[in-house]
């Protein structure tokens, strides 16, 4: 039991930090431009596939730097040529544009790399067990992933809170017109923020690709969870996104690891004489409902606290 708790906590924190790499970009983009970027998870997928392809050509370490930059460039192009032109039609049009993009990117990826998973492997330099805990080998690559995400988290925090650029970005979040009057090019700030957000998503893809499955449906699988995370944390709140990411990561990891069901907990009270729906619910294991849990969380938080955990505004 202790083993399960330790390993699951590690995995959960790891998954949570990965989610935060994505949700942080999404949150900053949302609070700045009012656009919920549907294609954010697609940038994550692009990162994974670029990482795979570049690893094949030039090795993992250059790919780790180049792939996020490429994804960032794609993101900036999307902002400059897509969103900026759509802005005049309103937020719904922008949301729909990113929705169409997400759809198109998935199709393009499956067209180029096929629909089956690609063979994106952990680099040889990191392919060893980092430590052994309760007779389970914990892979070094996961520690590496954790280190990278924590590093980015700290860097993001410092950049936003301690630098001049961060100051301008924070100002542009709430008072874009004032920032514009002070002589800053708000359009370019938006483009840069969008690019950095996409690059972060791409980085998450590059490092998550080898550990998870790199496949053309990975964006569609992660995307809805990502939205749950940022609604749960409170739209536009970075600390909220952080807490919600970790929480969702832990909940999902623990749910997958646990194998209990109502039947195993309250065996003798079997309602098999009742309608068969009850039997279904009775026999389902926690691991089976793991994919549903984030959405249940979403519904619960919306009923209890509609603005999300740390959200301040009713959008």
């Amino acid at each position, binding site marked *: 039991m202790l083993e399960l708790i330790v390993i699951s906590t590690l995995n959960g924190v790891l998954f949570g930090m990965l989610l935060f790499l994505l949700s942080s970009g999404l949150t900053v983009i949302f609070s700045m431009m009012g656009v919920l970027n549907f294609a954010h998870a697609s940038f994550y997928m692009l990162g994974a596939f670029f990482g795979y392809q570049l690893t094949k050509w030039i090795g993992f370490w250059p790919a780790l730097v180049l792939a996020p930059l490429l994804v960032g460039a794609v993101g900036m192009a999307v902002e400059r040529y897509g969103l900026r032109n759509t802005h005049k039609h309103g937020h719904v049009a922008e949301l729909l544009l990113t929705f169409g993009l997400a759809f198109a990117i998935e199709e393009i990826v499956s067209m180029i790399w096929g629909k089956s998973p690609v063979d994106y492997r952990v680099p040889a330099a990191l392919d060893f067990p980092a430590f052994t805990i309760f007779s389970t080998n914990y892979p070094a690559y996961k520690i590496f992933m954790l280190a990278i995400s924590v590093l980015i988290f700290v860097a993001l925090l410092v950049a936003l809170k301690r630098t001049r650029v961060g100051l301008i970005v924070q100002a542009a979040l709430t008072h874009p017109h004032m920032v514009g009057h002070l002589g800053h090019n708000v359009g370019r700030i938006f483009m840069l923020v969008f690019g950095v957000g996409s690059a972060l998503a791409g980085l998450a893809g590059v490092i998550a690709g080898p550990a998870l499955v790199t496949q053309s449906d990975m964006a569609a699988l992660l995307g809805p969870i990502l939205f749950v995370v940022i609604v749960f944390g409170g739209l536009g709140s970075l600390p909220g996104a952080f807490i919600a990411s970790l929480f969702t990561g832990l909940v999902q990891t623990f749910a997958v690891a646990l194998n209990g069901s109502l039947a195993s907990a309250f065996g003798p009270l079997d309602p098999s004489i009742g309608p068969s729906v009850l039997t279904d*619910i009775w026999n389902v294991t926690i691991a089976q409902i793991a994919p549903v849990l984030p959405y249940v969380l979403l519904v619960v938080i919306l009923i209890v606290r509609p603005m999300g955990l740390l959200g301040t505004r009713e959008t």
Partner: protein
Amino acid sequence: MTSTVTSASDVAAKPSGQNLRFYGLWVVAAIALVVLPLIFSSGGSLTSFSLIGIAIIFALSYNILLGETGLLSFGHAVHYGLGGFAAVHMMNAVTSHGWPIPLPVIPLVGGIGGLGLALLIGWVMTRRAGTVFAMISLGIGELVASSSLILRSVFGGESGISTDRTALPHIFGWTFGPQIQVYYLIAFWVLVSAMAMYALTRTPLGRICNAVRDNPGRVEFIGYDPHVVRYLAYCFAGFFAGIAGGLAAINFEIANSAYLGAVQSGMVLFATFIGGASYFFGPILGAILVTYLQLGLTSVTSVWQLYFGIIFIGIVMFAPGGIAGLLMMHRPLIRARTLGLVIPSYLVATLPTLALACGVILSIETVARYTVTGGEGNIVKLLGIPFNTTAPTTWGIAAVLVVGGFIVARITWRRIAEAWDRAASIARDRGYLA
């Protein structure tokens, strides 16, 4: 100068001739629905018509949310699917218990299924509009779709639940075995639902929905609760989506979890938006086009969904009113008789735009089939000309078409915009809004 267009006077003093024209339109639609299968009587076209009919009801129901109330839902298929499952379970129950319920009533059961779910989840969902509603609808959609795989006894797991539509009590000797009878059943429900949904847009509720879409704060000031209005609109949308789902269940004789999924929700959004959400007939156009493309493109290309995505992005960026919006833009020009000023520039733009489209199609197909080796797999037939996707000449042609087409087409598009401005300003001078 007798009919200067202002919508208020339009509604107030509608001449009786216009009323006649309005009812005539429905009669013509009804006749068209009856006559269509007599002209195109092959099995394939009957199946297509049935699918299009279902898609029309579904898209119109979606437009109650998107077009009328301004709610962007990413999970509308939930009601469609629930309607389908309700219909299938009802049909099986009718068969096994021998109840005297004929098949034509079953879509109503589907509608009640969709409505039931809407009543249940709608109150929480419609608390807020805009982006938050979109996110919640996505989450709820995923929730229901994933739950459907857990509750096997209701949703039948991966394989779904099948039924037999011919086993229900027959009326007037109709067994509903042949596709033509199913088509007429669907056509009947299309007409009834379309009329009901059109009537809904004319009721005070429909009008207040429009007001909630445009300015919820103002609606609150005059004493309506936008939340309640959104909830009612959501319930109506759920009901009609359920009817569409019930018809789909009858048509395919099966309901499975794919009915509820994100793909189905995405398709109805595409159909509605491509057709145009701001006019009642927009979703009808969109449903016809999308279903037709879906059926037609799958046999031609393996990446047909990519074309959907591209068309959708193009519509969102350049014509947010959809096809209906594009068509209706020309109405004031036709009335002011200045359409002739625009048509020459359209004709000039056709060729480079087509070249650009061909270039894009050729590039996409080249990439898609590049990895296919051997046989006819890597031959693209475009306009009857075979292109080998591994040959550099094909890549060259595609590049020239895309780049050259784009440069020339952009010039012609600018000319369209200029001609359009001229025509529109003349129309405005003559007293027609443009």
